[in-house]
């Protein structure tokens, strides 16, 4: 017990006497922040895998310091040393009120237009580089231009379509899907 106390005091002394450093954040340019085209209060309809229409409402829109930890360990942040934020990020949350589970979607954009997408509490899809190539796609009878496509085949396959003008167009995984209704 005494040994632990001595170690703790020594640790605190060493920590407190360390060099004092500034916190440095890379700012999020307005152009990058605009890559998420949603605004608070906006309502969007999506069709799920069963053909039901779900109403999503934008409930959260904040720009604040960002750490990748949340995305790497969304359910158990205690498994790692918490990474300190290094940039500002804009996060927008859409919550579904027609579904009893109140599912939600979160989009986070960081500088240089990297977009993170988090859906339904249970999955975090790989981030999307919005500086990458775009395609023209047809989804649910609508044609969309300048669409970023992220897809992965194999176990835990997924595909999602995202446009900087429209937002999420469609996302499909094994057993689940959402498609924008315009």
């Amino acid at each position, binding site marked *: 017990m005494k040994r632990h106390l001595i170690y703790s005091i020594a640790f605190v002394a060493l*920590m407190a*006497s360390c060099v004092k450093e500034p916190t440095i954040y890379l700012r999020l340019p307005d152009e990058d922040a605009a890559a998420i085209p949603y605004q608070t209060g906006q309502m969007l309809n999506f069709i799920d895998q069963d053909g039901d229409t779900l109403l999503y409402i934008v409930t959260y829109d904040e720009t604040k310091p960002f750490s990748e930890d949340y995305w790497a360990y969304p359910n158990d942040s205690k498994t790692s040393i918490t990474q300190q934020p290094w940039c500002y990020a804009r996060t927008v949350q859409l919550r579904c009120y027609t579904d009893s589970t109140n599912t939600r979607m979160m989009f986070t954009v960081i500088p240089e237009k990297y977009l993170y997408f988090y859906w339904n509490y249970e999955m975090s899809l790989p981030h999307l580089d919005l500086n990458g190539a775009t395609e023209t796609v047809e989804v649910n009878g609508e044609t969309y231009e300048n669409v970023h496509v992220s897809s992965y085949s194999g176990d835990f396959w997924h595909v999602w379509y995202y446009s900087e003008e429209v937002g999420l167009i469609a996302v499909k995984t094994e057993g689940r899907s959402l498609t924008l209704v315009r």
Partner: protein
Amino acid sequence: MKKTLFVFCLIAFFSGTAFAQLDTVRSNKNEFSIGYGHMPASSFRFRPGCMVYPETDNIGAFYVTYTRRLSKVIGIGLTFCYDPIHLDYYGTVNGNNTLICKVRENSFSLIPHLKINWLNTKYVNLYSKVGYMGFHQTTYKQKEYYPDIYEVNAPSQDELFDLWAFQVTPIGVEVGTKRCAGFIQCGIGMEGIISIGFRYGLKDKE
């Protein structure tokens, strides 16, 4: 219990050794020393999970010490340490790695200490020193180069002052005469991991 007994025996042994040398050892009651230490604790970085690593210029710490000897073995005193710290932060600007912020700090600390001379001979002294709960004040200046791209927040005033300045020196060696000696010591704290210096003893009144 065994440990306490062991420590007691150790102190008794070394005290006895020291007192046995009454006629030969130096016995200046007032000692002053100046020194330079490499890698003081005030230059350590402790930021787990931080993604930003500065280029540091570890100049080292300069310090002045006064010790009042209570006996030939034990002395108490104060140490004043000064550690200038240079930090240069680089970041990506238009695809190039560029200097984005310069930080210049001065760390000042005042630490009370206890000095124990384990061995006193005519020309060589061995000692240990421990200092704790000293004042520690840091002055801080930063210069930003790209404030439109990077936000740089200085530490708060509360962070720049603490009472945790410390020095633990398990072993130090002094070599010289009664009045003047050079020393080298190893430890951890505001005086550095390894430091060298010069000690001057005031002549005692008869």
